């Protein structure tokens, strides 16, 4: 089985793919912060941020609507915010009655709701683009260079490597349970909820033991190749003039968006 489905990286050869991962990470975070700083209803700024995204999509050769399509999965979560529709003071737009409550949608509420959604949606797309054009190990390197503590980046690197091994293992366990989830014609099948929960817990316990023992074997493998408590890696990234230029360009653009957002 291959759960490569977890990999969000898209192999292409583009300027964006070749950009230094540190630059990509910093620009992404800057854009997300910039979105957060934009006031409600800064339509022009939202529009420019969106155009910036589309342009990046094109440069990445993933297709102009790449992040657009991917972002739709993340949107339903955004509905948590729907209650601001009613709770923000302002001029009533429409009113309705549900069960025992009256709900009033205000103009300020609508403005705020739509702004929250747009900000969140723009930011999600930036993050999607980042992982689509940066291989995850490079991203982890970037994090290490950006002063994320080594213990965390090392854990994340191991996590990423064994994600695939262990999720495969889980899928096989689930599959085994499914294939024995049988019924006979006569009886009610399935067992009680508590029993089913116990079986799921047993599976988690199994998985834990195997993971634990695997970590022992990996530790042995590391020892036999000279590990003595410190992880060394070669630094495969060097900033080139193009990287500085791209960073400067992005910062300038973000600055312009911020100005536009305030008129």
């Amino acid at each position, binding site marked *: 089985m*291959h759960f490569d489905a977890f990999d969000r990286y898209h192999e292409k050869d583009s300027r964006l793919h070749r950009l230094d991962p540190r630059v990509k990470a910093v620009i992404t975070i800057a854009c997300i912060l910039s979105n957060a700083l934009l006031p409600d209803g800064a339509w022009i700024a939202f529009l420019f941020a969106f155009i910036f995204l589309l342009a990046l999509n094109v440069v990445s050769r993933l297709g102009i609507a790449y992040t657009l399509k991917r972002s739709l999965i993340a949107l339903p979560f955004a509905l948590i915010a729907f209650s601001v529709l009613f709770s923000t003071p302002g001029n009533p737009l429409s009113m309705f009655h549900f069960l025992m409550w009256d709900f009033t949608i205000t103009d300020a509420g609508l403005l705020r709701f739509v702004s929250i959604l747009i900000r969140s949606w723009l930011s999600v797309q930036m993050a999607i683009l980042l992982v689509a054009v940066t291989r995850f190990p490079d991203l982890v390197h970037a994090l290490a260079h950006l002063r994320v503590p080594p213990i965390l980046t090392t854990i994340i690197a191991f996590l990423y490597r064994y994600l695939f091994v262990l999720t495969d293992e889980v899928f*096989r366990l689930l599959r085994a349970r499914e294939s024995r989830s*049988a019924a006979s014609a006569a009886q009610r099948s399935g067992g009680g909820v508590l029993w089913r929960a116990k079986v799921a817990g047993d599976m988690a316990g*199994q998985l834990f033991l195997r993971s634990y023992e695997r970590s022992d074997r990996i530790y042995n493998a590391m020892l036999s190749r000279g590990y003595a408590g410190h992880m060394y890696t070669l630094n495969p990234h060097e900033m080139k003039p193009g990287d500085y230029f791209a960073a400067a360009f992005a910062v300038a653009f973000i600055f312009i968006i911020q100005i536009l957002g305030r008129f």
Partner: protein
Amino acid sequence: MPITHAENKFIAPRSECEGDVLQVRDLYFSYPDGHAALNGVSLNLCGGDKVALVGPNGAGKSTLMLHLNGILNGRGEIEIGGRRLTRDNLPVIRAMVGLVFQNPDDQLFSPTVFEDVAFGPLHMGLPEEEVRARVDAALEAVRMSSYRDRLSHHLSVGEKKRIAIATVLSMKPSLLVLDEPSAGLDPRARRTLINLLRELPITMLVSTHDMKLVQELFPRTIVMDEGKVVADGLTMEILDDEALLTAHGLEKP
């Protein structure tokens, strides 16, 4: 001569009966990533048949087996014991087809041997008496009765393999489907397994890379490659057909 075949046409199954235990007709399946793993598989199995399924890595053997109790759903028809496999009768079919995975660690998820073997019967909603009786009978059949209360985690590979077989025997299947049962066993454990399979009075379909096992145990062999059945016939004849073996990355034992 076995019936060998390179193109996509229908292959008449060797077996004389009509396939009273299993009939697969024109099964196609592609994985979500677009890889076409099965390209029109047809085969029949009759009561008492013991059939080997061989072929190189990636031939589609495991994929086919996962179809036989409805874990995967391809296009085509599958009948088990004369009953068409559909979404509605899936649970009943699963009681009829006992599927044992290659790695026993995938099969065993409970802390003790007893709990694992009891999972199937319990899920079928059988009364406690019956469950206990079936567990005992299944462990007896694989000669592991004394392991009833052991932790499955601490068993050797060969022991785990036998317990894995017991976990499906306890459901009294009419067809036993084993995916590479001998992988990773030392010669002694392998021998014990071969004897066990020989004695079990059940129809079985067994995928394997172990050509020696094929030669010893199975009168009939099905060869798959690239998602198709490319040969189906007497094991003796297939193992004698050098050209066929080489063409599909196999070797004489």
